[in-house]
């Protein structure tokens, strides 16, 4: 009984390591294609549009609402201590250190990661990838690498937009609506937010998330079972694994960066 239990745990762990190994090999192949993609920037630009630009809308909306809510809640708490002049610091640090990178990554995996998985998975199911192979075109380099690069480049940029818009929306609610002094909103922020410690670390987080989320998305798509059910399962897995990976990595990165 216990032996069985241990055995199944062991099998599960071995399985997990095996798929991590496969995913790493796949990643190697994807990265080997970077040179080819840089020689043909048109491929990359098209993907940057569909992965990055098309995710812009949801990032903009979410950033505005998150910034406004943060500012409201922050004001309600701070005003009890007469510290509402620190509102700018609270809003900007939360967004830059944590909410910007994490929420952007989660939204990005829902909007762009799932689309990447479904697209690549469907191309596999309809033998488009196999037919490319027979035309002597490597589908990893032609299809996967540009999409991987596009995701990896887009997320940090989207995150920066998220942070900036969130902070501005927080200012609109805090100063323009609730009447916090405009000068102290911005000047306290400038005093307390450090470029290297806060901004750069926040961006590093989003670079890591961008790498992991797109890696998971393209790997799930490329290894989907070539059926409609397989593609739908891969798409779900892509979003679920991305979310877990982002939240787990966020804890680790936060512990390393801010303690």
């Amino acid at each position, binding site marked *: 009984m216990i032996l069985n239990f241990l055995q199944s745990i062991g099998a599960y762990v071995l399985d997990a390591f095996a798929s991590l190994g496969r995913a790493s090999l796949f990643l190697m192949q994807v990265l080997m294609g970077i040179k080819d993609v840089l020689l043909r920037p048109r491929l990359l630009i098209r993907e940057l549009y569909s992965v990055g630009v098309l995710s812009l809308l949801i990032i903009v909306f979410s950033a505005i609402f998150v910034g406004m809510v943060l500012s409201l809640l922050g004001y309600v708490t701070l005003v009890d201590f007469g510290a509402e002049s620190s509102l700018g610091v609270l809003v900007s640090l939360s967004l830059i250190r944590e909410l910007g990178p994490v929420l952007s990554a989660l939204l990005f995996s829902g909007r762009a990661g799932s689309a990447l998985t479904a697209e690549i998975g469907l*191309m596999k199911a*309809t*033998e*488009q990838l*196999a*037919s*490319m*192979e*027979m*035309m*002597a*075109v*490597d589908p990893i380099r*032609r299809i996967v690498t540009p999409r991987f690069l596009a995701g990896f480049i887009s997320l940090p940029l989207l995150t920066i937009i998220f942070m900036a818009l969130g902070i501005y929306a927080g200012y609109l609610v805090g100063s323009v609506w609730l009447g916090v002094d405009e000068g102290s909103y911005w000047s306290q922020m400038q005093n307390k937010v450090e470029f290297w410690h806060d901004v750069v670390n926040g961006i590093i987080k989003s670079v890591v998330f961008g790498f992991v989320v797109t890696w998971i998305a393209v790997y799930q798509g490329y290894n989907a079972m070539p059926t409609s059910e397989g593609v739908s399962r891969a798409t779900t897995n892509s979003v679920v694994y991305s979310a877990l990976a982002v939240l787990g990595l966020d804890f680790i990165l936060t512990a390393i960066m801010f303690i």
Partner: protein
Amino acid sequence: MSDFFVTIRDLYFSRGDREIFSGVSLDIPEGKVTAIMGPSGTGKTTLLRLMGGQLRPDRGSVIVQGLEIPSLKRKALYQARRRMGMLFQSGALLTDLSVFENIAFPIREHYSFPESIIRDIVLLKLELVGLRGARDLMPSELSGGMARRVALARAIVLDPTLMMYDEPFTGLDPVTLGTIVSLIKELNCSLGMTSVVVSHDIHETFSIADHVCILSEGKLAAQGSPEELMNSESEFVQQFVQGKPDGPIPFHFPAEPLEQDILGKDMSGKSAL
């Protein structure tokens, strides 16, 4: 080296527990049309994929144009594939490109020809399959037979020396069928291609094939020219060629007897109630 274009020796291949090939050896002569036939699910498509290096055999060798395909490195394999064309059973057109761009795709990927030359090549190939007028349609706007013809044009666009057709005749109307049959023959004669045709259509296939291989249950069951097979003594070949329901070829995928499946294991009939 022999004058065979493709040489397969002692090929073993299995998927999971199912053995698909157990010791197949066959030769495909250069410049001829060779037909691969056999009951559905015997692994004809699988054999083409092994020849194209998309699958690796468990054992045995697959030699195409003097190259041992399974042991080629990535780069050499892609180099070898430039001289192969494959028509997929499903067509497998790239769905986000128009008909024209689908056919231009292999040219654009491998050569940097000026646009006017690409246009000429593509239109000529489309003319061959009778779809020059459909160049601006998207794959989703094509019928199954049209898609297959576009895929055929795409497969021959780089003038391969080995052309593999997976079921080129299914889903075509009689007129198109006749055209495609003569097109395959013509490509073979005029361009000196070596062609491998996988098909179930005895009549069409025998009309163009110089050599026919029949696979069954993981083995090469029979081979020879169409006439030889027509006049073969073998019960198996006669059943296959004439499409008779009874004989050594089973119609069913391996399974337990029907009574047992329906009535349950004890065969008494009670368990069904």
